[in-house]
């Protein structure tokens, strides 16, 4: 079954919010907060819409808000993918 990887999430977020060569990659810092990696709430909102489109996972804003790091968001998406 299809699963999301850290690098796939990073690619989506670069597409949504622009890449920023000055911050760590998700592989290097899977548990750093999105805010510290330079992503604001709008970047996450945009990411939510791409995940819905490309993975068929419709995260609620509440669930999205609870995922504070790349690893947490990837885990959340993959739990969804395993459940359906």
């Amino acid at each position: 079954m299809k699963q999301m990887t850290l690098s796939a999430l990073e690619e989506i977020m670069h597409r949504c919010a622009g890449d920023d060569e000055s911050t760590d990659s998700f592989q290097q810092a899977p548990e750093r907060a999105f805010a510290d990696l330079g992503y604001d709430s709008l970047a996450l909102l945009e990411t939510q819409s791409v995940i819905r489109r490309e993975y068929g996972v419709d995260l609620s804003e509440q669930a999205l808000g609870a995922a504070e790091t790349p690893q947490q968001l990837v885990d959340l998406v993959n739990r969804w993918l395993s459940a359906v």
Partner: protein
Amino acid sequence: MTTAVITGIGVAAPNGAGTENFWAATLRGESGIGPIRRFDTRGYPARLGGEIDDFDPAEHLPRRLLPQTDRMTQLALTASAWALADSGVAPGTYDPGETGVAMAGAFGGFEYGQRELENLWCSGPERVSVYMSFAWFYAVNTGQLSIRHVLRGPAGVVVGDQAGGLDAVAQARRNIRKGARLMLSGGFDSSFCPYGWVARISDGTLSTDEDPRTAYLPFDLRARGQVPGEGGAVLVVEEAAAARRRGTRIYGEIAGYAATFDAAARYGGERGLGRAVEAALADAGVTAREVGVVFADGSGRPADDRAEAETIAAVFGPQGVPVTVPKTMTGRMSSGGAPVDLAGALLAMRDGLIPPTVNVRTVAPGARLDLVTGVPRPWQPGPALVLARGRGGFNSAMVLRPGTAAPNRTGAASVTGREAPTRSGGKRHEADDTVGPGGDHA
């Protein structure tokens, strides 16, 4: 009263991105007007424009800012950094709360907006960028500049077409008088996209001439309309005593300003430009005889040109003052036009050279103007008058007085000493709340 002076300039214009590139091209009489290449203009009645070719936003801005900004915002952000560096204002000079932004916008981010509207109608609402929420908005440049340079005091935007560019700088002067120490001010427009183009064509003012040398000829016998340009300028406006204390070069002082409206046709249609000129001179305490140059609005439409020429001749006498329209090299940049003229006037004071009006050969009969054509004209710098008119009857006039040269420059980073955030971390929502239109635009 508190004096507001200009200590930094950042220009992005069709004939030069970067203040000195723009100025050198302007003195050489080099025009940036040509066939539009940004989008396919086949089928449109007007096909010329002033495009900025040598500008790649990725070279100037963090990549995080690119997906969330229209071209006019990318130009404004870049030019604002140039202006701050030019002013030499050192980190920590001012508290963030005593620094602010007053910008003008006429279109907003139409190119961004068109793309997202296409996404909406072609692919559905979930394909619309979340950044559309602010990227198209007139006030977005004010918000983005405020965030980027950590200017947390007064923030405002004015919308008045070409005249708005002077109104915004006047707003910055009011903010300085009310206690702000430094303001970024000016205006930018682009909207070189079908949506922006159709909006411009709809008002019937564009020249349909396809020759870049004859399409936009303000005050000329052959004048037949205007050519749009993209770009604008940002000025660093500072409280004079604070600027002198830090020993910086002062380009000039915002000495006087006034804005009027034309009367509606049903009330006789009386034009208000003359009242704006008289009131701005009175505000500056400058007589018509003392004014050394007029940067005219230079509409390029014969009726507007005639009215402006009559106003200038009435105030200064026939051929009474050198008049110039460097916009003949850039096209009319909407809210960016007048700030670029202010920059041109300040640089004219610095170098003792009035920039020329290009392509105009035969001033229309009845226009009793001493138009500076062809090549720059040396002058003894004195007060300069900049005029701007906007669609819908806006008239604004601003008087600048020469400043003082004072080197002792230092490199600049963030004005307030705080690192400008390259990421907004949720602050975007706050910014949306603080940059609403308005201010105390008189």
